């Protein structure tokens, strides 16, 4: 396997279309568009070609990985039902009849009813939206904020780096669930945004630490020194040369973090400070069901199962992406 960030390799192969990793080539010709984060690339280098970018290489690995395919399918399905829940659930999650409370499954209501007499199947389907929204938005926010702050600290070093590292230490010292309880206990809004904001606030140090380390490693590469010697500006070095080489670990950690944010949202909702009714969320439903656990465990099992499968899918995806992007494991 060719070293993805070896400038010589890229220069010899001269495949400008091979992606952002062929930095020497792109620096020499400035033809290659920066394609970080686009695993597919234009596929300019077919199978067996001498030089492939890290991304096209990773994509080839991923396509063959059953774990990636299974988790990918689950995630596509989840995104689909969070966008159009009515496609597979005809009922209304808030249409409840107390007369049906705690009843088991019956025709048309395969998962039975919960303590308020709501249809568990409909609520489980509609619950996907809150989880997916929180997971995706929190991860995007954390990844953006963390990689910008951490990347700049790693690149410029000095006082900002020292201050940022101490701030990161401070945030690491505070248990997340506890911070959530304190900060979110005052929130009365029943939208998802306070929860997302809280996760970004307490989550960014994790990514910033990784981005910082990864930028420091990338900064020492010869091609960055070469670019500096050729008079490249700071922003050009950061965006064209360092960022594409430093982003892989961030993507891996962020994908796995997505799963844990979904679990965290459910945990906070279970504790009563996360999402609030009438938002439909698995965490809220599990919390409500835990009071009736002796008589009607089905109310707990369906949303809990859906939650577990969702988290599992994102963690498996993260694992597969890491295996594909980390050449050490190959």
């Amino acid at each position, binding site marked *: 396997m060719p070293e993805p960030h070896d400038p010589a390799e890229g220069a010899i192969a001269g495949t400008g279309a091979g992606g952002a990793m062929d930095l020497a080539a792109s620096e020499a010709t400035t033809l290659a568009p920066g394609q970080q984060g686009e695993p597919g690339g234009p596929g300019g280098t077919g199978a067996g070609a001498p030089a492939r970018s890290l991304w096209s290489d990773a994509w080839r690995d991923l396509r063959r990985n059953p774990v990636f395919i299974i988790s990918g399918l689950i995630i596509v399905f989840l995104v689909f039902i969070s966008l159009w829940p009515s496609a597979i659930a005809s009922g209304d999650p808030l249409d409840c009849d107390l007369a049906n409370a705690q009843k088991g499954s019956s025709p048309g209501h395969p998962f039975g009813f919960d303590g308020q007499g709501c249809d568990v199947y409909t609520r489980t389907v509609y619950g996907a939206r809150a989880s997916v929204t929180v997971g995706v938005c929190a991860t995007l926010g954390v990844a953006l904020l963390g990689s910008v702050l951490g990347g700049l600290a790693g690149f410029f070093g000095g006082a900002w780096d020292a201050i940022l590292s*101490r*701030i990161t*230490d*401070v*945030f690491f*010292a*505070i*248990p*997340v*669930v*506890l*911070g959530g*309880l*304190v*900060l979110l*206990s*005052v929130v009365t809004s029943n939208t998802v945004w306070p929860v997302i904001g809280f996760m970004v606030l307490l989550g960014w140090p994790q990514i910033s630490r990784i981005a910082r380390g990864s930028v420091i490693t990338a900064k020492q590469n010869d091609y960055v020194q070469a670019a500096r010697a050729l008079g490249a500006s700071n922003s050009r070095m950061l965006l064209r040369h360092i960022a594409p080489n430093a982003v892989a670990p961030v993507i891996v950690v962020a994908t796995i973090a997505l*799963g844990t944010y979904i*679990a965290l949202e*459910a*945990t906070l909702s*279970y*504790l009563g400070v996360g999402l609030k009714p009438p938002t439909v969320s698995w965490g809220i439903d*599990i919390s409500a069901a*835990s009071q009736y*656990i*002796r008589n009607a*465990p089905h109310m*707990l099992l369906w949303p*809990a199962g859906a*939650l*577990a*499968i969702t*988290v*599992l899918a994102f*963690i*498996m995806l993260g*694992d597969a992406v890491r295996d594909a992007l980390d050449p050490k494991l190959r």
Partner: protein
Amino acid sequence: MGRYVIRRLLQMIPVFFGATLLIFLMVNVMGDPIAGLCGDRKCDPATAAQLKKEFGLDKPVWHQYATYMGNVFTGDFGTAFNGQKVTELMSTAFPVTIRLTLVAIVFEIVIGITLGVVTGLRRGKPIDTAVLLLTLIVISVPTFVTGLLLQLLLGVEWGVIKPSVSSEATVDELIVPGLVLASVSLAYVTRLTRTSIAENRRADYVRTAVAKGLPRRRVITRHLLRNSLIPVVTFIGTDVGALMGGAIVTERIFNIHGVGFQLYQGILRQSTQTVVGFVTVLVLVFLVANLIVDLLYAVLDPRIRYA
């Protein structure tokens, strides 16, 4: 060594003050600490002003923080909403949570490292795949779901354990809650040990040890395991703080009256003093645990020296 410890202790100071200040500000944002003192009714303005003055709440936040920290260093953590001293609450709550955390850590070390060694030595075999899948599932199911399910199965259906823990919280009552608390970390310890063992298995020193004719058991325990434990020790060390903080969920499920319970009550009742006091101690525990981990490196790997 001594100088290293001193340097690390000095580095801990800004982190300690930063973290406590952060939580102090968060709690202040949390709401009016006086509101909790008048029960469910609203305080009348005169009483509120009187109480504010009494607790020093009419002063700016930085002043309140400085006063609070000054008191903490003389051992005065203030008073909880019901008039009990916070230190009194701590003296009943911390032993319970420490026992729970110890049970959890023992599970992590014994089960996690054993499974990690077994799978790391048999990479790619069926047992490896099975354990790996199991850890994935454990990581994916949130702790509160694991806890509720175990409580339902063991406590309610089969009657093996009591569904809720008594106020004494003896060690045998804490075994299942400890396992629940440990579950996710246990899976991480297994995976970390597995990776580390699999990586070091091909190291030169292992080959040397085998070539010297050492028994397999000794090669694994003395040579392979000792060198593979550094990342695991790091993880377990940083996990001590997370476990004590994460005990909120476990303690709520099994009705254990530990740190998590007191914190939850403190937050519900908006008792600033309780929350800040407990968090301050938790932050200290976290920092000390991290320091101990760093010092343990030298014990595990003699090549690491502290200047």
